[in-house]
């Protein structure tokens, strides 16, 4: 693909939508600001440091390329990924790396300038080639050049710096530190070549409410700064050079969304209470400290699911008790005594390999994961419990155990918790003696014996994603069967109803932290089944609260009863959709690309 041929034609690229919203504006490929590079002298004593700076920048660019290559290979196959190997070879070439380093030592000028000189010499030669295809190799050099210059400037500059005005920022990847320093009023959206829904940058973009699409693959090289783009954070679509009719349609959709979110924001500080006065606990699912503030601002009364895995995935070593304690304290303090549920580390499959030497399993989802790791690696579990207990004096902390499938596992965990408490008492370290402990209900065996498990617990929290996949025996990342993954299957709904019923019969409250709690279509039915707490993704807080505030409890009970009388998922969904269209017409935005009911990875 040549830059020129893409200059005026509408072009669509599909990525992964990670933060809702529609951004329309000029593209600003981060790193395109390299025209700013000027030569300046480097003091003799600083020359080696300058060489080191360049070496580091090249190494960083290489690992970025390796990651893009791996992701591209997964998505598009080996052949498409080969170009990134070529870029790596270019960076390692003595004629590039070696020449730039030699020139830094000889000429004592800054790394940016000399690297640019070295690469541009070749770029010029390429542009004089007779063979058109060979001539186009200049774009490979430009891409390589930008990547390294961006690395060199990265320490001093964040991608929003140098923005001439409001723009959609493009980058290979966004570092959390970069995301956080952006001038919000100038950044219309984020588009990245790398990344997944759960990358740190994606989560931050969501909490900053900047429309974002990640995993677009190699786009930066096609982009001339200022190219008009539409970035659709609902569908993951990136549109370069949109045609006038496309632009018009998106502008209309955008204004509808803006009007809706404006309206919903008005109930931010109002309680999540039904019209007839039943209070629902509405809280947020979070993973990072940065998400706490925005969630509270949008009216969450606390955190219903704090995923603690990232501390274990950050590095090759396990986090120490002190590191965990410091992070937990930071998050609890930000909540100002609003409740928080800590889910103890839920690792499995490939994620657990690094720390727990888990062998390749034929069926990781049916294998060694969640609570099942705790007996063999009790010391890791104990360390986390110690950190949580010590932090518990600073707020209202609850503990949730993932992947419980039997009473025996729950008893084991309570036993370990008691012994850790005893240890702390002996050392006169204060903690919350009454700290509530709950089981995550996400395995069918736990759901059908929820009465037995509830006797061992202070609360239950339903994790719908796994519950659905285990109940229906469907791996939803498998495209041959993913259409069978249906949250509204009668079997799943019955398990949810029974879990709530059993929990209440044993005198414990029942919440839900799975994706279904964030689905507006499910809200009335779940209220009707008696669910006490909804823990939702932060972006869904306002819409779920709006629904809660507009319904009567008895009307939800009737609806739930009817929903449970149907025999297929289609019947349930059709009925729920018809009710939704009747009652909440204003929440539906008519655009085929933008179903109101979005599914989120959990």
């Amino acid at each position: 693909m040549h830059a020129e041929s893409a200059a005026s034609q509408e072009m669509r690229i599909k990525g992964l939508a990670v933060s809702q919203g529609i951004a329309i504006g000029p593209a600003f490929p981060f790193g395109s600001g390299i025209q700013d590079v000027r030569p300046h002298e480097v003091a003799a004593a600083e020359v080696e440091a300058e060489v080191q700076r360049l070496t580091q920048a090249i190494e960083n660019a290489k690992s970025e390329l390796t990651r893009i290559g791996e992701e591209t290979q997964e998505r598009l196959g080996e052949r498409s990924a080969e170009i990134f190997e070529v870029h790596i070879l270019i960076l390692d070439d003595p004629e590039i790396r070696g020449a730039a380093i030699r020139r830094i030592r000889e000429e004592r000028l800054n790394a940016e300038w000399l690297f640019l000189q070295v690469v541009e010499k070749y770029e010029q030669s390429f542009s004089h080639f007779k063979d058109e295809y060979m001539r186009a190799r200049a774009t490979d050099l430009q891409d390589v050049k930008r990547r390294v210059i961006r690395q060199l400037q990265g320490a001093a500059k964040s991608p929003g710096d140098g923005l001439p005005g409001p723009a959609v920022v493009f980058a290979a990847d966004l570092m959390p530190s970069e995301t956080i320093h952006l001038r919000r009023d100038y950044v219309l959206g984020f588009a990245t070549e790398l990344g997944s829904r759960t990358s740190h940058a994606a989560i931050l973009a969501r909490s900053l409410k900047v429309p974002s699409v990640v995993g677009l693959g190699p786009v930066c090289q096609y982009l001339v700064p200022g190219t008009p783009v539409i970035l659709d954070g609902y569908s993951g679509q990136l549109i370069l050079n949109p045609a006038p009719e496309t632009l018009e349609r998106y502008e209309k959709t955008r204004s509808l969304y803006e009007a809706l979110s404006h309206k919903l924001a008005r109930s931010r500080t109002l309680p999540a209470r039904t019209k007839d006065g039943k209070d629902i606990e509405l809280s947020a699912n979070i993973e990072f400290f940065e998400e706490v503030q925005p969630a509270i601002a949008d009216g969450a009364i606390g955190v219903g699911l704090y995923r603690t895995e990232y501390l274990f995935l950050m590095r090759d070593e396990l986090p120490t008790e002190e590191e965990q304690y410091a992070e937990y304290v930071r998050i609890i303090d930000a909540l100002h005594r609003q409740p928080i549920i800590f889910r103890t580390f839920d690792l499995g499959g490939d994620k657990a390999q690094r720390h727990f030497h888990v062998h390749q399993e034929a069926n990781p989802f049916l294998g060694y994961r969640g609570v099942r790791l705790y007996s063999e690696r009790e010391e890791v579990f104990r360390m986390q419990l110690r950190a949580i207990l010590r932090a518990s004096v600073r707020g209202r902390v609850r503990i949730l155990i993932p992947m419980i499938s039997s009473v025996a596992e729950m008893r084991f965990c309570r036993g370990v918790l008691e012994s850790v408490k005893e240890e702390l008492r002996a050392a006169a370290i204060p903690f919350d003696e009454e700290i509530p402990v709950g089981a995550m209900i996400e395995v069918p065996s736990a759901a059908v014996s929820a009465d037995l498990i509830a006797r061992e617990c202070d609360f239950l929290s339903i994790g719908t994603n796994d519950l659905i996949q285990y109940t229906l025996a469907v791996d939803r990342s498998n495209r041959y069967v993913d259409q069978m993954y249906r949250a509204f299957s009668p079997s799943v709904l019955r398990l949810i109803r029974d879990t709530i019923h059993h929990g209440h019969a044993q005198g414990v409250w029942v919440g839900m932290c799975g994706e279904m709690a964030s689905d507006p279509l499910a809200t009335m039915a779940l209220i009707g089944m008696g669910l006490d707490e909804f823990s939702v993704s932060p972006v869904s807080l306002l819409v779920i609260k709006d629904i809660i505030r507009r319904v009567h409890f008895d009307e939800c009970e009737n609806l739930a009863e009817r929903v449970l009388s149907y025999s297929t998922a289609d019947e349930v969904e059709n009925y729920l959709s018809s009710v939704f269209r009747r009652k909440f017409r204003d929440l539906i935005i008519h655009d085929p690309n933008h179903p109101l009911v979005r599914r989120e990875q959990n």
Partner: protein
Amino acid sequence: MIEKKFRIKNKLGIHARPAGQLVKVATRFKSAIYISRNGNEVNAKSIMGVLMLEAGHGSEVIIRINGEDEFSALEAIEELIDKRQFDEE
């Protein structure tokens, strides 16, 4: 030292991906490996050098190899240029 002349038969010539393939094959060997076209000789282990040859479709290049594993190196390069034709589709 051994030398062999090749005609580049694949349609797009030694552009980025084939150049990368050649460099990767060349760096597997200890011998010094050079590639020349129209009298310009470059190090076959340098991708920039190889690209600068502008060896398009139909052009003629000479591979010159000097070192202990020169024969196996030539064999591997023959395989890439003649037999696999850079795996072009």
